[in-house]
């Protein structure tokens, strides 16, 4: 067996071991590689910065523990920003059944900067039905969520007295892992009600979402953990996004190295075979 053939047949466990080691290293010994902030992430930050007092922001928790590492830091960063802004009212909602627990985890640990539950922010929880639920929520929030996640009747929450439908929403941010997600929000809320819309996405769905950015249906997005790290940098906070970025670099190097090795070996092997 030639060296090239050997390089084409490295045992999968060796590949796993390399990956494991290369990710562990920067987690244990961080380097702090500099990070450029993308215009897509900055657009969300700038939009929130410019929101006038009294604006109503809906943050939709449409992810599950499976994408927790990628999306929870995004949600934490956005929620931190919204809590810091005085006079902003926040509605937390979920169209994924695991979403409410993710939202509550943030609410239990976040600094609310004096914001009070019911007056400045509410957590409506989850409603089944996917796209239909989004449409119903946009048309009549009180009918779709007669009770919030903490079992308070919606009419007993002072903040919700004047917020009845999507017409009263200033900004919609979905932390979306899949379906229902961006296309459904574009169809049911952004399009019909012209609500400004941005999203935090799992990295894999960023490419398919780019057409919504170019068409102006969305104005900003956070791409996976990098998006979260960029947002943390804008907020001057050190969260899980920033901590993980060195490991992202190292892991990508491993994958790129293996692709390179395999292709060099493949081409050399083919050339050898041709002779």
């Amino acid at each position: 067996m030639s060296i090239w053939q050997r390089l084409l047949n490295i045992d999968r466990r060796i590949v796993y071991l390399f990956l494991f080691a290369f990710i562990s290293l920067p987690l244990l010994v961080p380097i702090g590689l500099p990070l450029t902030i993308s215009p897509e992430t900055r657009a969300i930050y700038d939009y929130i910065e410019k929101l006038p007092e009294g604006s109503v922001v809906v943050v939709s928790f449409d992810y599950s523990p499976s994408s927790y590492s990628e999306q929870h830091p995004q949600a934490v960063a956005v929620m931190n920003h919204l809590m810091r802004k005085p006079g902003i009212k926040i509605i937390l909602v979920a169209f994924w059944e695991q979403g409410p627990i993710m939202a509550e985890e943030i609410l239990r640990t976040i600094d609310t900067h004096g914001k009070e539950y019911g007056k400045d922010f509410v957590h409506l929880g989850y409603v089944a039905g996917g796209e239909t639920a989004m449409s119903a929520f946009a048309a009549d929030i009180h009918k779709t969520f007669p009770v919030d996640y903490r079992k308070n009747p919606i009419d007993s929450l002072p903040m919700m007295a004047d917020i009845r439908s999507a017409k009263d929403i200033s900004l919609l941010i979905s932390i979306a892992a899949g379906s229902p997600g961006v296309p459904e929000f574009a169809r049911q809320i952004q399009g019909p009600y012209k609500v400004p819309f941005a999203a935090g996405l799992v990295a894999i769905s960023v490419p398919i979402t780019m057409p919504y950015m170019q068409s102006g249906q969305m104005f900003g997005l956070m791409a996976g953990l990098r998006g979260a790290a960029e947002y943390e940098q804008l907020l001057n906070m050190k969260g899980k996004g920033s901590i993980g970025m060195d490991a992202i670099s190292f892991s990508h190097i491993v994958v790129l190295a293996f692709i390179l090795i395999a292709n060099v070996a493949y081409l050399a092997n083919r050339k050898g075979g041709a002779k």
Partner: protein
Amino acid sequence: MLGPVFATWMGAVLTLVVFSFLLKENPAWRLVEHIYLGFTAAHAISMGWANVRNLAWTPITTKGKYYLVIPCILGLMLYARFTKNYKWVSRYPMSFLIGASTGMILKGIIQAQFVSQVKASMVHISFDNGFWPGLGNLVIAVGTVAVLFYFIFSTKEKHPAERHFRTLGRWVMMVAFGATFGNAVMGEMTLLIGRLQFLYGDWLHLIK
């Protein structure tokens, strides 16, 4: 309750058990997998019940909205699919759900995924703002049409130009798939990084 330390240790042991699947399927993994499935189903039941209570049970019992018994009966009819002779009964609620979701999609898709997208593809092709944005706009205008051409005119070509245009459509899609793969790598790596952050940080306190 058992406290946060126990939860962290439980999380660590479970993480290692799931990782063990990489080497070989084993009894510990199978047990965890089954408990996980049971828990996921329980979560769906709990969330479903909360929705039924808020949207139907409470309005029926406290506000006298008795007509909401009808969707409840329809909901229960879904379970007829598990019987042999009355399977057809579940078609009634299913047709309701399908009708509603089809209506939802049809009303929104024309604007959100057709008109808006077609409109946005009609870009101004000019090199005044630099070569790359100009080339990019050209790629948007021609590339989008080429991809659609590839999908819609997949029959045998009558003219060699058709084949070339379809090839261009395929190449544009290859860029899109390559970009998706590149992003997918970052996504999957993040999931692993998250678990290692938990093991090294929350469990072993090795991350400062």
